[in-house]
């Protein structure tokens, strides 16, 4: 690449973002491979797994909340749909996790399209509340229908895991490693989706909807098609993460998979970094996860209180998020930080 070309890309922020994204994926992969050969990395593997689950939901949420400006308050519904679809196939039909993931993502995309037909007519707080209601409705159904396991959930037996192996680990021993690498793949996919949205004409249309939906319609953006597509895209990574975690934990439970708290954690992470930016999703989720883990261990009894105060402070002092704030502060950074 010529120097001028590199400079031009650098100026448009693309190279920095590309390098950061590549670095994130490389670090995640490296840690996973390391943990295969060193027992002492097991703790990091597990905490990074939790981080990647949240990150998968954030990456989906950023498309609809960040770029399109629709506050999906119950976004974990797609995590739940993914988890339950995968579990039904694994539990009743003994399907492999890979096929179950494929089915989960298709089910979630279909559900997103159908739910979108209803909720995307609404704007602002009404949309937010409708998404909460959808999530809660799914939870109540999952807790009451016997086929879905009711409030006890569906649980896989250990024999199901016999066929899985990786680098000398077999059966249940292999699950945590495989789940980790599958999640790295989901995160990579999510980052690619966000990069695409950030740089495409499609993404420009979504941003137009965010700024002023009626004006966007007036200048020829097919707003209905665009926001429906955004909603469907936003369901992909949460559904995949749900399927993987259902498999890893061996069980699906209504309260854990259709979890309003998880939705809100995703919103906070997105906000903290800066909604509608690629670098913001990484920054926000990483900081949120680190802070939460620290609070949970150092102030186990007070963590909710500290946590609530932190959220309120962010919302009142830093509503644009860290990356959003930096972008406003300096025009140079605005071009560098995507």
């Amino acid at each position, binding site marked *: 690449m010529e120097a001028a070309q590199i400079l031009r890309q650098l100026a448009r922020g693309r190279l920095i973002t590309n390098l950061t994204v590549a670095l994130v994926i490389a670090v995640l992969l490296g840690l996973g491979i390391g943990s295969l050969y060193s027992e002492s990395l097991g703790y990091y593997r597990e905490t990074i797994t939790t981080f990647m689950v949240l990150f998968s939901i954030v990456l989906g949420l950023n498309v609809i909340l960040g770029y399109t400006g629709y*506050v999906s308050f119950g976004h974990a519904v797609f995590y739940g749909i993914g988890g339950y679809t995968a579990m039904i196939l694994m539990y009743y039909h003994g399907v492999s996790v890979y096929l179950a993931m494929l089915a989960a993502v298709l089910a979630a995309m279909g559900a997103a399209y159908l739910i979108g037909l209803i909720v995307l007519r609404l704007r602002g707080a009404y949309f937010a*509340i409708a998404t909460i209601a959808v999530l809660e409705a799914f939870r109540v159904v999952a807790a009451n229908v016997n086929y879905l396991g009711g409030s006890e959930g569906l649980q896989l037996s250990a024999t199901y895991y016999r066929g899985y192996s990786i680098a000398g680990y077999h059966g249940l021993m292999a699950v945590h490693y495989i789940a980790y690498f599958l999640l790295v793949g989901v995160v990579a996919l999510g980052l690619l989706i966000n990069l695409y949205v950030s740089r495409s004409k499609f993404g420009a249309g979504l941003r137009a909807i965010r700024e002023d939906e009626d004006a966007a319609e007036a200048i020829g953006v097919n707003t209905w098609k665009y926001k429906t597509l955004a909603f469907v895209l936003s369901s992909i990574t949460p559904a995949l993460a749900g399927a993987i975690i259902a498999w890893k934990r061996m069980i699906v439970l209504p309260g854990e998979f259709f979890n309003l708290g998880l939705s*809100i954690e995703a919103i906070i992470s997105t906000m903290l970094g800066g909604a509608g930016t690629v670098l913001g999703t990484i920054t926000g989720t990483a900081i949120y996860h680190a802070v939460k883990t620290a609070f949970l261990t150092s102030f186990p*009894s*007070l*963590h*909710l209180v500290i946590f*609530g105060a932190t959220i309120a402070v962010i*919302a*009142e002092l830093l509503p644009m998020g860290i990356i959003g704030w930096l972008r406003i502060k300096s025009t140079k950074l605005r071009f560098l930080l995507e």
Partner: protein
Amino acid sequence: MGVGGLVSGSLLLGGFVAGLVVGSLYGLAALGLSIIWGILRVVNLSHGALIAMSMYLAYLLTVMHGVPLLASILLTLFIGFVVGVVAYYLFVHRVLGGPELASLLSTFGFGLIILGLLELKFGGIARTLPVESSVIEVGHVPIMTIQIIGAIVAAAIAIGAYVLIYRTWFGRAVRAVVMNQEAAALMGVNVTKILMLTFALGVLFATTAGTLLALAYSFTPETGSKYELYSFTIVVLGGLGNPLGSLIGGMILGVAEQLTSIVASGSWGPLVAFLLLIIMLVIKPTGLFAKL
């Protein structure tokens, strides 16, 4: 009772009456959410936590400090109003007029603080208030007399709120602020004070509903979130900022919930609320009785 079995008419009548009774309390809870939403344009996500807070305040005073029930209820309401004033300045004032997400998150953060403190002090065990009440049966459905008293109080407060908003100087100032804050300020209305009082009033209604509900039902810190979701449904049913709409919306939801629990089972009750909410949002998001 039960699926497939015949449900007798008198059982349905009993469920209907029980629904009206509990529904008027839901309506009062929703009124707290509704006036804050309609007038400040803030969806108060600490609503459920504030309801739970009032239940535990009443519990703390009555059970742990031996204050007489009526006195502890009145004291709880006073504290609720004060908490509303303080919360307005700490969590609401700065985010007014900003992006939607900011007010959703700052009120949610406030709610988490309350929930955290409740968990810390009381843990997750279900509690009840020491209330002795006779029971009357309407079509085989038992209803406590204290519930009926609570329902009457709730309905009276909702009507009082209607009068306050549509028949008094304060109410006129509130409506002026909703229509145009700058013009209201130029006419001599202290906008911040009106917004602060409205928020505190909303919290007061939520805490009143909370203490009345606590008289008849057991509660945990999580209980508030159920009433918060019910309140959303009722606000959307009844229309923003209309106290009578909230009352009627609450009764509709109460009846729907009670009848569902008679025909199917109690655990399906919430689903009815969420389906009602989604259907209403799609068909008529301004509610059945929108005003202001």
